[in-house]
């Protein structure tokens, strides 16, 4: 219907390899980008600062994790710790007087270096064993931050972040923070979309499918596994810095505990391993559904439904759990696959089947 393939004839390899071969998808992307750019004018401050802004930021982080999990097939249960390293190093760098842009770079590099050290474990172990190794990273980083006053900020364990400055101009409030996050998000998204078209992305895919089969094709598993951890941790560090500068406005250890790591993994899995679109959808579901559900239950309760305060607090959690399980049963490959099913259906519409 809308997804018309008829008449698409490629005359060159670059044309065949373009990101969005279908016209409708190019139009959709343009529309989404335009909406994202004018969102602050369209949305109320509540929606912008409590829904859209965190969604954009967590999507950056989940994209970074998806590079590792979906792209290279390496599990990471300590990604919140990676973000924490970025958040703290950027905060301390900026407080020491470094410009905001450079602080972001410092965040990425610090996370990448430490992330690679722990990622080196992936050279020897995989699967559940790697999960435990990355879990150790979570605990070690938690402990280091909590017990070194120079990092955590002393007794109160909270460090306020300076106002971000772009080229020396202070960017205040949720709108400014939103645009900073959006720019970073667009850059990371483009990187992730293009990844599978690069030799780096193809090498990661080979390692994901079978690392020893990749080795006999001349792909160094050692090198590319470390590069996967490096790149993913870099993105995670920048995401952590953006999170505390543009959204939390202060940094404290509780922000980056194990629950956060688990949530990030959930975003990637619910969204769909290896899918860019899925990462955005997964982040939306994991992050925004609890907020929206508790608001929904609260508005039901205030409209006169007999919901006790205990039920009112727990019902959204029950619904949230049911929602996640429901989505995964309906489509085990994640939200991205749901979209893909609809897209494939429309691609061959009005016919029932495509020729395989």
């Amino acid at each position, binding site marked *: 219907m809308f997804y018309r393939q008829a008449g698409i004839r490629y005359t060159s390899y670059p044309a065949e390899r373009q990101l969005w071969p279908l016209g409708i998808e190019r139009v959709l992307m343009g529309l989404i980008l335009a909406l994202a750019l004018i969102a602050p004018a369209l949305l109320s401050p509540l929606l912008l600062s409590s829904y859209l802004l965190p969604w954009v930021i967590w999507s950056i982080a989940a994209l970074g994790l998806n590079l590792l999990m979906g792209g290279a097939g390496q599990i990471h249960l300590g990604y919140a710790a990676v973000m924490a390293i970025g958040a703290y190093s950027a905060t301390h760098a900026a407080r020491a007087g470094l410009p905001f842009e450079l602080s972001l770079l410092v965040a990425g590099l610090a996370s990448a270096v430490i992330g690679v050290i722990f990622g080196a474990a992936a050279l020897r172990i995989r699967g559940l064993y790697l999960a435990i190794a990355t879990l150790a990273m979570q605990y070690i980083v938690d402990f280091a931050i909590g017990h070194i006053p120079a990092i955590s900020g002393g007794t109160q364990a909270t460090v306020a972040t300076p106002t971000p400055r772009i080229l020396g101009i202070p960017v205040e409030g949720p709108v400014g923070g939103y645009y900073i996050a959006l720019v970073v998000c667009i850059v990371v998204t483009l990187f992730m979309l293009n990844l599978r078209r690069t030799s780096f992305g193809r090498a990661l895919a080979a390692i994901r499918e079978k690392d020893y089969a990749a080795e006999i094709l001349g792909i160094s598993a050692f090198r590319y596994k470390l590069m996967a951890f490096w790149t993913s941790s870099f993105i995670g560090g920048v995401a952590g810095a953006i999170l505390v500068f543009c959204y939390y406005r202060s940094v404290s250890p509780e922000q980056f505990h194990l629950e956060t790591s688990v949530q990030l993994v959930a975003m990637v899995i619910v969204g769909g391993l290896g899918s860019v679109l899925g990462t955005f959808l997964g982040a939306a579901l994991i992050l925004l559904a609890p907020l929206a559900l508790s608001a929904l239950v609260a508005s039901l309760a205030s409209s006169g439904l007999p919901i006790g305060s205990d039920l009112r607090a727990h019902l959204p959690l029950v619904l949230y759990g049911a929602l996640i399980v429901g989505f995964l049963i309906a489509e085990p490959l994640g939200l991205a696959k749901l979209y893909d099913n609809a897209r494939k259906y429309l691609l061959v519409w009005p016919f029932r089947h495509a*020729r395989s």
Partner: protein
Amino acid sequence: MGDISTAAAGSPPILSVNNIEVVYDNVFLAVKGVSLDVAEGGVVALLGANGAGKSTTLKAISGLLKPERGAVTRGDIAFRGESLLGLDPPDRVRLGLVHVLEGRRVFEHLTPRENLIAATSMHRDRRGVKDLIDRTFTWFPRLAERAKAKAGYLSGGEQQMLAIGRALMTEPKLLMLDEPSLGLSPLLVDEIFDILRKVNAEAGVAVLLVEQNAAAALDFVDQAYLVDNGRVVMGGAAATVKANPDVQAAYLGGGHQVDYAAVKHYRQRRRWLS
């Protein structure tokens, strides 16, 4: 060209596949209309090129499409007159049909004996299990020799034997084999087919065989179907199929006296049929 219905008149077939259509991932049509019958105690081959839909047909019969996101969207599969659609794979095994997967899939970390015992989980009678193991080891003396090694260390031929022996532990009425000759030497292929012949004769197990190696298969079976592009294009007694000049040309490498006009005619017909 050939009579599609090959079951011996009078005796009802043990397996009857009636015009099934299989779709993967909701949109990709892999099997467009396959019908076939296997007689009680019969030996039938399903031949065809790569990607013709042979393995998909077997998976549709044994119920293994679901993990691969496939589904039977039309037609029916009946085993001894009872429809199989809607039954789980284990239920189908209980009814008496068993599928030996392509590429062997033995439990690598178990010994051959443990592999065999693993297939008897639905037996209640422990003494019966011992008899079954003995029966299998009699059919496959090579396995008895290596009963204590880990299955992962067996040779390819031994692993194939183990996979077939394991399937026979379920006491099937119908044994479905997907490419048992894959990657094996001609000598071993002969050995395996000899054993299968013995199994068919001694235990009365019907066999449905999917093969690339058409020459070996046609020597072994009574009936054969030719699948192309998701459809059955020919079926009949093995000798008839083997004698067909088109089959000779396309699958048996009898290229010395090719009638090019006939090949062209066959290809056109094939295109028209699909």
